[in-house]
């Protein structure tokens, strides 16, 4: 029972991690708390549903198409909304993404309706036994996808020119610009990456929570909690935060009752922030005068 709870917690947590990483990447490169991150995923899930059901596309081709569309959506958001106000304070940026949230929410509700739709399950729902615990195959697939994406990101940030440039922008945008790094392009890339992660998060979580305009609200909030938990600047921190939240809420759901799931995540974060205001892996930034 306990092993099973932990395992399915890790599976959900790995999906939260996709959102949490996107939150961190966008925040540290653009100072933007992106509230629309969940809705990128939501639009992605709806598109996937259409591609799979109405057009009858293959699952992997669908994933490819959705990733392309949502990356485009991320870049579009950056160009149309965020770039004109890029120099504003963070509250303005935050509120602008709230505007994007409302628009995407409204568009989805308008085009596809507010009711929940089932998402076709592509894997075998019968549980399998691994290491003495019973796990559903869906959970394993999700963990596998999330790990794969994690490796891709690691390689990107470590070995590619763009990835290194992106880290440079994180550390010090002004110096990066002086060094000839095209900061605007990197910011665009950042939003593209947010779209990339959102597409996967949406498609992978859709069979679990079903598809509706508000499907990602809670996931987004947990992604945020995870990101804050890890200190908002650290990708490994966000991943660890996401996994911890996944496990903790699953245990709370199992032993206290499902109502306490989300509250547990927040109780954790408030407790942590009270002790370490900069998050678990955060660095206490030098205060500017």
């Amino acid at each position, binding site marked *: 029972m306990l092993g099973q709870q932990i395992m399915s917690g890790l599976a959900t947590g790995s999906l939260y991690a996709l959102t949490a990483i996107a939150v961190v990447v966008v925040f540290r490169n653009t100072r933007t708390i992106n509230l629309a991150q969940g809705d990128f995923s939501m639009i992605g899930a709806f598109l996937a549903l259409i591609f799979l059901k109405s057009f009858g596309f293959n699952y992997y081709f669908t994933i490819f198409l959705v990733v392309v569309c949502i990356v485009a959506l991320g870049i579009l958001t950056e160009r149309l*909304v965020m770039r004109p106000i890029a120099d504003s304070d963070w509250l303005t940026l935050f509120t602008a993404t709230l505007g994007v949230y*409302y628009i995407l929410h409204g568009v989805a509700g308008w085009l596809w309706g507010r009711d929940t739709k089932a998402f076709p399950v592509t894997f075998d729902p019968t549980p399998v036994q691994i290491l003495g615990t019973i796990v559903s195959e869906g959970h394993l697939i999700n963990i596998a996808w999330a790990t794969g994406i994690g490796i891709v990101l690691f390689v990107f940030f470590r070995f590619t020119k763009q990835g290194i440039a992106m880290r440079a922008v994180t550390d010090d945008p002004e110096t990066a610009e002086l060094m000839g790094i095209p900061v605007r392009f990197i910011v665009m890339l950042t939003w593209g990456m947010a779209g990339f992660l959102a597409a996967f998060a949406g498609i992978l979580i859709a069979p679990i929570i079903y598809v509706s305009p508000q499907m990602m609200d809670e996931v987004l909030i947990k992604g945020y909690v995870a990101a804050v938990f890890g200190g908002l600047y650290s990708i490994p921190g966000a991943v660890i935060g996401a996994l911890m939240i996944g496990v903790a809420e699953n245990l709370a759901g199992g032993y206290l009752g499902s109502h306490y799931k989300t509250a547990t995540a927040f109780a954790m*974060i408030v407790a942590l922030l009270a002790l370490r205001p900069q*998050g678990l892996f955060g660095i206490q930034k030098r205060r500017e005068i």
Partner: protein
Amino acid sequence: MAGKIPGGALPAAVGNREAVAEQRRRFIRQDFMLVCLLFAVLLLIPALPFVKGWMAAQAVLVIVYIIAAQGVSILTGYTGLVTVGHGGFLAIGAYTAALLSKHFGADVLICVVAGGAMSALIGVALGLIFLRLSGAFMAIGTLGFAFFVGTIVNNVKVFEGREGISLPPNHVFGLPIGDIGFYYVAVLLLGLMTLFIHSLVRSGVGRALKALRDSEKAAQSYGVNRWFYRTLAFSISAGITGVAGALNGLVTRFVSAEVYSDIWYSVDMLVAAIVGGTSMLMGPFIGGVFVAMLPFFLEKLADFSFILKGAVLIAILMFAPAGVGGLIAKPFQAMRRRRLAEAGARAVAGAGVAESVAQEGARNG
């Protein structure tokens, strides 16, 4: 601006300053008259023949949003802190009022005061935690608080979860009041809150808050106690939102977790504060009306109201960062600045003549 008018020795500058001050006082009187006029209109509206009870109840809901936005604007506007969790304080106010009304049959005014006081108290405790956090962290922390309140009212017995608490009819000083009577109470409270915020931002406390907002280090080096003032601001803001919550619960005479665990309340309040324009008295009025009336007008087109809300929000951030209030006030402020400059210039010219006459006299005598 007026200080930059050229010419005028010392005595002239004194005359200049007095004339400008006089002009300023005139502007303050004008503002005061405008606000009085607004409230007079608000108080007279129910006397119109076509006004029905439900309209008054609807109007109270708008007032609730205005007061809540006032609460948020104390933080975002005057203190420079961001909260995404004030829905929690709305809930605390509403439930405090509801429990008092249900179990003790308390007076509306007592319920409202208790709701505000309870929120303010909890605000002190939370302020001590949240004010350690900077910007983005604080936003997430306050959001967590709203969620937490939602879970509590959903699960703790006394709050009766989604079933909700139905309230007995409202009464003030022993007199039963209907929707229209309640509307008067709400307008009165709105007036009190507006007056309170007006005097707060002009008091020493308000100046300390603004100083902390503009430069924390500079303010601290002048001896402004950051902890004390920020916690105070958080608590006041929570208390005002609690008053809004109490009104909201009492006017609908029904309080349920379904409504108050919705964290988008919190977000709506922030939207109201920003759309209207923070750090100005007029802002919450405009923002509150916008946020409260949008779903009312577009009831059948809920999705469209979402799109409109988002588009308006983005447009305002791009083109009018000071909010709609700032946009409206801009030409008036420009006009007033011109008037002040003119008053200053006139004073200089007048004083200049007087001065030369005096000098002439001195030379002759």
